[in-house]
């Protein structure tokens, strides 16, 4: 298992290097340091102000090749934006935001809390609601409840998540006035008031796909011999569904779930942006909109790292959940 993990970490490292290279190439294919500087200091600043900003932030270097140095000089390759990009990311020296010069590490730290206060309940409630509803419809399969829920699931899956947000804000926040339309307060006494609506919207928008997937998994398990045996032995319905079906359906559920856990830290892009939650998802959206390369590369880098960690955790959880699985 150790050799397997080592190999996976090695592949993961190469993947991260590739992601960083792709990000660099794609970002500078659509923009350039002048544009970053212009966004940072404002459209109306004079050219000398742009130039000084680029020097202050290291964007005065060439992208790939520094022709100021001879071919044999290593600085021809190391004194470039690409080399600086790799150096900063691989040493976790995230630097300062291009948009407002604030420390990116501090912004990550500040944003992680609000993101987690949204994503953890969203993830947990979504999972519980999905499993509960899927077990329910699986239990009543082939009845009108099953069919009605499936139709509803298809409907919810067909609607864009942005529409859920706008409709949720308008219907629940504006017309029915149950919760604030947007906002966030770190004070736990009133934080729930702000989180109720985004969590509700997030759970509902993701429920359709989850229920359909989980229902299929549960129905497949329910047709197995061990379920029939359990029933024949006089096991109650609840016990059969929860103790036997749910436990044996854990592997596909884990595949779906464990990989999502690391992403709880990176926040929910749209929900945070529309509900005014100052988390890491909103930070990413802002970095994209504001041409903030320093922040964007950090978020993409962390996202790639977390994805790889999620994949490895999933593999480990397979082995833990099912003794038949061997990692080699």
């Amino acid at each position, binding site marked *: 298992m150790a050799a397997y993990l080592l190999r996976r970490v090695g592949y993961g490292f190469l993947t991260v290097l590739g992601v960083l290279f792709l990000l660099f190439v794609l970002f500078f294919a659509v923009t350039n340091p002048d544009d970053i500087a212009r966004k940072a200091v*404002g459209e109306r600043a004079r050219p000398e102000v742009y130039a000084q900003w680029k020097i202050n932030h290291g964007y005065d270097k060439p992208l790939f090749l520094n022709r100021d140095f001879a071919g044999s000089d290593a600085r021809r390759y190391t004194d470039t934006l690409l080399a600086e990009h790799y150096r900063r990311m691989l040493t976790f020296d995230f630097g300062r935001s291009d948009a407002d010069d604030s420390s990116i590490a501090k912004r990550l730290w500040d944003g992680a809390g609000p993101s987690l206060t949204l994503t953890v309940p969203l993830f947990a409630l979504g999972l519980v609601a999905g499993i509960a509803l899927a077990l329910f419809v699986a239990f*009543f399969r082939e*009845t*009108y409840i099953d069919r009605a829920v499936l139709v509803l699931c298809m409907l919810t899956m067909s609607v864009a998540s942005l529409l859920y947000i706008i409709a949720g804000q308008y219907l629940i926040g504006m017309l029915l*006035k149950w919760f604030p*339309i947007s*906002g966030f307060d770190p004070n736990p006494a009133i934080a729930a008031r702000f989180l*109720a609506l985004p969590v509700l919207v997030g759970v509902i928008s993701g429920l359709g796909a989850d229920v359909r997937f989980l229902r299929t998994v549960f129905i497949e398990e329910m047709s197995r011999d061990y379920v029939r045996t359990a029933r024949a032995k006089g096991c109650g319905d609840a016990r059969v569904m929860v103790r036997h079906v749910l436990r044996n359906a854990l592997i596909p559920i884990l595949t779906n779930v464990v990989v999502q856990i690391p992403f709880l830290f990176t926040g929910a892009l749209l929900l945070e942006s529309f*509900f005014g939650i100052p988390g890491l998802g*909103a930070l990413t959206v802002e970095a994209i909109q504001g041409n903030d390369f320093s922040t964007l590369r950090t978020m993409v880098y962390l996202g790639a790292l977390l994805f790889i960690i999620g994949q490895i955790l999933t593999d480990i959880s397979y082995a833990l959940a099912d003794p038949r699985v061997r990692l080699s």
Partner: protein
Amino acid sequence: MRAGCLSRFLVLTALAYCLAVAGCTNDPYPDSDRGEKVLYSAFSQPPKTLDPAVSYGAEEHVITGNVYDTLLEYHYLERPYRLIPGLAEAVPAAQPLPEGRQAYRFKLRPQVLFHTDPCFTLSQSGRQTREVTAPDFAFAMMRVADPALNSPAISSFAQILGFADFGKRLVELRRADAAFAALTPRAQYARAGGIAGIVAHGDHELEIILAEPNAQILYWFAMPFTTPVAWEAVAYYNGRDGRPHFGDHAVGTGPYRLALYEKQHRFTLERNAAWYGSLPPNVEAPGAVFPKEIDAQDSAAGRIDASYAGRQMPFVDRIKFYREREDIPLFNKFLQGYYDTGGIIKESFDAVVQSGRLSPEMQARGMRLDKEVEPTIFYVGFNMGDQVVGTAAGERSRKLRQAMSVAVDAKQYLELFFNGRGVLAQSPLPPGIFGYDASYKNPFRLHDVARARQLLAEAGYKNGIDPATETRLKLTFDTYATTASSSLPLEFLAAAWRQIGLDIEINSTTYNQFQDKVRRGAYQIFVWGWGADFPDPENFFFLLECRNARSKSGGPNTADFCHAEFDRLYHEMKYRPNDAQRADLIRRMVAILEQERPWIELFHREHYTLSHAWLVNSKPMGISHAAYKYKDVRPELRANLRAEWNAPVRWPLYLVLILVVAATVPAVRTYYRERL
């Protein structure tokens, strides 16, 4: 799963659901705010920096404008805008000096204190504040001149004697001597010898010496760039030992101090009890009391409460700003009464404004609509360096530009794409700026398709046909609008020109590529806009000065317009005071632009502000945003109206519950009947 167990589960779920429903509220504010004189506002973009030498944007000015006082400020109610004294005792008059120089002497108010802050222990142990003196202004100006700070205003003060030289000396000294570079900014500035044209005469008099006359420089003393800066604050807030940078920690003298600053999320301004205007001997200062003369129109419109005339400011204890990244939630929260003022989103414009007035529904809620023409100009520009539309083609291209100008129906353009929020432009000057003539009608801005065709024929392009190619004259309309919605206004303009026979190709690129084209001069027609830094005609006409031409200096004259007579008039007008001769110079400049048509002036933007009935003394200002000290709220009225507008509607929750039970129970019962 037994029936009894399921029933218990359902009953418990329903109970929890009902409890949650009973406790719900949409109030986003803490209960401690109730009954307080708090003003609520929103921001979409966080401030980049609060360092007054660097901050420039409106999102920063809402803080810096209220936390930092300036020597001069704008009269809150008067239009056209007029400067009044702030920290200065009077608006200084220009004093001529030998060699064509000019000086302004600011006499400073006594007993002006910085906000209490631990940084002042640097100058004296245990000290929490100190009086503002003339060297604090000189220090602030030296920071603007310091190239390391990268102030966007550095070129605006270039006429101050020795201003640019000071910056050069600093750079050289820092490069030559590492020990010098390690000194605090204050020590560096002192060793670099300061700026020759900024002289502190004792503690309460500041002299600014200009190498050449410039009456407009006074406007810059109404901006936070020139606010007094405590050297202690700059030295103390350096980002070390857990302390923030000076750009994230404002230490000013203003009527409000920054009490909370989570810049990505929210910030709070709190009344400064030791503000100079609240204490003798400055309680009668023009910037400390509400204007005594109140315009009857402002009063009748409900914008200004006449009973506030001459009262001591500020009126509100706290101003809370919350970040709203999206317009729709912001507008909806304004409608619920959770923000005191708001703009109007495009999607709801027709529901809010009908025939230019507030809709009856909004009027019934006690709202007020205020309009203010901003000092802006939106225009179509021609590249005057182009061989076809530019000056090289002589009279032919002039007629072509005139024809294209007459072909554009700016009124319809404004209605279609901006809900009519603007004033049709006849020249670069908007209303409220000296030299604006409301009676002037530009003959080439009257929409007339037949005349446009006639002018086009006179240009030698009858029906748009270019005799050289015997095909329609092809022109390129360059833009960085790449989305369908942002391209629509350009399509409208292109359609107007196609109507007279021209072949217009819209060339959409990224902003970057567009900028690159502008740099290379590889463009013909473009759409652009400008918002003035200060309310002076110079700040509009400089966009057409030859020295600022894109091809000459990479400056903001994107039309690349160079006209000797226009430049001569501009230089004569530039630094003159607002007198009859200046007005005449402006008329002559406008007449040149009328004929030459480097621009097709479209409109001056009009800002619509909605205010709730409980907000008092809210008059929109196109130039300055530092107006919170004038505003007041009526918390009782706000609380009552909020309660009335935001009572939760609970019946749908119970209905949902009943529907779920009604749909589930028969299935469960049937299932068990069949199985058991």
